[in-house]
């Protein structure tokens, strides 16, 4: 089991992230009729859906770079802005999920590259730290 030296900041939302054996997982819902997986997860009391944890590895489906600071609201990040990458990641057999991309040079982004889920520290404009999710390249992958 992986040990965390530092406890991550609280999740940015309830019922979104789960730590299983030290590993971050995303919470989603599977429709009982038909098996379709949906994200974000449905309300816990919606009995048409079961709660599921998504896979942690996928391939980049599309991407872009957010080069200007989004308007607030809804954006809650700090005033100081650095461009960041956003993408859709295909999780085989599950769904294609939108996420921040981290730990990669923008010039290296390629559709089809292998990615894995990681926690992403996110500081709100108020200075409060939260944890959200992102995908990062799998080391040694040649897209």
């Amino acid at each position, binding site marked *: 089991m992986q040990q965390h030296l530092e406890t991550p900041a609280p999740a940015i939302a309830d019922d979104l992230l789960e730590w299983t054996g030290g590993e971050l997982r995303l919470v989603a819902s599977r429709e009982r009729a038909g098996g379709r997986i949906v994200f974000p997860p449905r309300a816990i009391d919606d009995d048409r859906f079961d709660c599921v944890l998504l896979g942690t590895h996928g391939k980049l489906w599309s991407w872009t*770079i957010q080069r200007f600071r989004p308007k607030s609201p809804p954006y809650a990040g700090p005033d100081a802005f650095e461009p960041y990458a956003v993408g859709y990641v295909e999780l085989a057999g599950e769904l294609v999920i*939108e996420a921040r991309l981290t730990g990669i040079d923008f010039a290296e982004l390629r559709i089809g590259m292998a990615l894995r889920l990681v926690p992403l520290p996110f500081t709100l404009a108020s200075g409060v730290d939260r944890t959200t999710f992102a995908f990062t390249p799998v080391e040694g992958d040649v897209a």
Partner: protein
Amino acid sequence: MSDVYIVGAGIHPFGRTPGRSGMQQGVFAVRQALQRAGLEWTDINFAFGGSDSAGNADTMVSELGLTGLPFINVANGCATGGSAMYGAYNAIASGASDLGIAVGFDKHPRGSFSPLPADWGLPDWYGETGMMLTTQFFAMKIQRYMSLHGILPETLGAVAEKAFANGVLTDHAWRREAVDAETIMNSQMVSDPLTKFMFCSPGEGAVALILASEKKVRELGLPSVRLRGVAVRTRPPGSFEVFSPAIDIKRGGSPTTIASQAAYEMAGVGPEDIDIAQLQDTEVGAEIMHMAENGFCADGDQTAWIAEGRTRIDGALPVNTDGGCLACGEPIGASGLRQVYENYMQLTGQAGARQAPGKLRLGYSHVYGAPGISAVAIVEA
């Protein structure tokens, strides 16, 4: 069932008009449409209208006259104008009324739209972490499309270059200066692969269309076009839409493909019959992809189409002859009606410097918006 005709159209110039509210621009457009048609507000039996962020359309009766007419407000995001026309169309087609108005107007603050997650059924974290931007969606949709279908940045640049060239010729356009493809491609990158000049901006403007029954159109003897097909559709399973935290692994169609098919079927025509098209071009990628989603070409054929100038005003299928959203900006409530206005002006030979050559019989218009809605109208001269 009556056939339905557009017998008059008015527009308030798009762009920025300080000191004039969105609703006043709407009143301006209605008055212009009435005046051009030689009609009075008291002649109008009903109205459908809307804006996204410039107030309640039915308030316009204070300015236009308290005739007691039914005035239905429409709030349908980017398809507000298209939905207003859909309502007006059905009111006449059903035989319930003879003469009505569809009006749309808007006035947005500068910069990108700032939607709130709860309004779209989404959790706050989606907006808080910087993923709820229309610009990101459009960038990622064309990014994937380029990779699948071999579209190059040069084609993106050429679409914007055409839009601004058409805007130069258009009296209601906002951007009226030509910009060359190189400048467009080298302008500030906003959301890769799209640069600043490849996006339209939220703006201001208003459009009013007067719709009439077959009986009424004969009585009035005005320049008119017949509405052959009108369809509004929400998204089918497996589509890829703006504001989607996740999409289905099993890919499907789009609201545009199904609205398009419904309108063609209703009109009894196909894409090969269309002489002129106004396609949603909130950014250059949208125009490129919508050419295929509306059936005008196969995926990937856009490279050749655009390189050969086939979508220019003098091309085989002129697209966005007034410069589209790229040159006119996007006042949400008015934008879809602007497209129909443009087809009306083109098909009745009133488009002036931007008039497409030759005999134009069928005009096609298509608007798309969040959270996955499309409206298509086909008009015949």
